[in-house]
């Protein structure tokens, strides 16, 4: 039986005269032990989906079960089954790392005899044991995030939600975070659901991903299969006057698309055909040949390029920003 079953989950936000469908009839299943990624641009509905599964928000319609418990009817049981690491820091600045974990353990009713042992184990897993008695204000962004992962494990949940686990971290720290998450998967055999808008992150960590755009799941599969599914390689041509017309008639071009001033061609046996394509293209500013990435997968299914041009943060931040502008 899947540990998470989502059926037609929908969330509509109403703001006076506007309606925004953040999550639009989403359905999926996650099996125990999977690392499942919700991948999509900012504002695609990833965080809202997780929030509903974690019982932080009520769905407008549809249902889901987590660890066999209904998210609307049995929220307390759902909460005991899950650990959450939020996008924004949520540990107490003025408490030490150790005290933050202890607070969490007591809130989740961890038996007193277990508390000490579990705190130590969790702190060692994320390499924070040596810094346990410093107040969190003195921690770096990466340490804080690690502490929050350790905290999420205190009550030995079945499922761990990681909402943008590496958002705002520098590349080196991201690499470390990935390492800790991989270690966690190996040692704890826990089911992980993570949201991210980093392609490389999803590619590296997840067994299976769902690409989300505008509240809908665009496609869902193993990253490898998604990329293979495109077939061939991708040639991207940056042109002054981009047009896909000349490439349409070529037999070996499976797909041709334009995004901004770049033409993307999915091509079989690209190395042998590059010459001909360049000739047809004429005035080209730059050329790139690569095997398909998740970005190409997204482009293929969503029909536009996946970029990080929307503001950081989730739906609420953007709603708040929009409200302030008025």
């Amino acid at each position: 039986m899947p540990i998470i079953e989502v059926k037609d989950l929908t969330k509509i936000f109403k703001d006076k005269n506007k309606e925004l469908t953040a999550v639009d009839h989403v359905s999926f299943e996650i099996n125990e032990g999977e690392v499942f990624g919700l991948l999509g641009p900012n504002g695609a509905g990833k965080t809202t989906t997780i929030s509903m599964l974690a019982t932080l928000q009520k769905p407008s319609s549809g249902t889901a079960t987590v660890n066999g418990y209904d998210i609307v009817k049995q929220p307390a049981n759902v909460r005991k089954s899950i650990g959450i690491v939020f996008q924004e820091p949520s540990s107490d600045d003025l408490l030490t790392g150790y005290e933050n974990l202890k607070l969490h353990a007591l809130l989740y009713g961890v038996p007193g005899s277990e508390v000490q042992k579990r705190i130590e184990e969790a702190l060692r897993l994320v390499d924070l044991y040596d810094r346990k008695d410093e107040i969190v204000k003195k921690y770096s962004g990466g340490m804080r995030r690690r502490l929050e992962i350790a905290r999420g494990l205190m009550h030995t949940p079945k499922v761990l939600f990681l909402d943008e686990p590496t958002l705002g971290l520098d590349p080196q720290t991201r690499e470390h975070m990935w390492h800790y998450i991989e270690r966690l998967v190996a040692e704890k055999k826990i089911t992980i659901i993570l949201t991210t808008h980093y392609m490389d992150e999803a590619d590296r960590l997840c067994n299976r991903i769902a690409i989300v755009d505008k509240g809908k799941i665009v496609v869902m599969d193993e990253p490898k299969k998604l990329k293979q599914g495109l077939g061939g390689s991708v040639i991207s041509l940056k042109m002054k006057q981009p047009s896909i017309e000349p490439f349409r008639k070529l037999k070996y071009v499976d797909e041709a698309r334009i995004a901004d001033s770049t033409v993307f061609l999915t091509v079989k046996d690209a190395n042998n055909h590059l010459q001909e394509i360049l000739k047809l293209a004429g005035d080209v500013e730059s050329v790139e040949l690569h095997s398909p990435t998740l970005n190409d997968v997204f482009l293929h299914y969503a029909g536009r390029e996946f970029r990080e041009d929307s503001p950081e943060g989730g739906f609420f931040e953007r709603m708040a920003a929009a409200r302030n502008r008025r």
Partner: protein
Amino acid sequence: MMIMSELSGLYAIWEREIRIYFREKSRLVGSIVSPLLWLFLFGTGMGSAFSGAGATGFNYQTFLFPGIITMTVLFTSIFYGAYVVMDKRLDFLKEVLVSPVSRTTIFFGKVLGGVTDATIQATILMVLAPIFGIPFSLNLLFAYVFLFLMVTGLVSIGLIIGSLMDSPEGFSLIMSFLNFPLFFLSGALFPLTNLPSWLLIFTRLNPVTYGVDAMRQLMTGMGSIGLVTDAVVLVAFATIMIAVGTWSFARMKL
């Protein structure tokens, strides 16, 4: 099992509030310095004016002492709600609110924390009572009962405002509209006898009045309302505020 985990949650929230209280030294020091300034500077100044006006046998500083204790706990208690707003900013509140502990328990844990903070502050000042002509006696301990009731209601008010507000600025605005009327209309600074009737009505509507009166009666014998009335009003005040607070925490959005 259920009750045990709620109790451990209650303890956890209370313990966190106390730790933070002692960790933020400026908060502790600041809350002691200003009442001392009131007692020594304002108290001495006004006291001299009274005796100059021929009020013999009346020590203004003694009269003022219970009022200033009340002022201290009043400001501390209401301001305590600001920490809810700050916890919201940090998303720390989310972490607490998503835990399996009930919202009612969370509210009570916070109230206990606030009451403890305020009681510690009051105690630091109480120790100085003899300096202001109030000898230690059992009555001082009895005064704590009234102090406790009043503080419970006031902390709840602070938490209610905190649960409603999203920004610290909004909180401090509301707080300043609330603090000073409650303070000035409580009889902390002046006796409530001989007041014009419109002012008297306002002081009688102010729950803090009854706390000041009871403490002043027990500490100096200068009360004017009566301990039974004081107790009834304060119990009602604390009960109503706890009820409203529980409700406001239950409907607080994440």
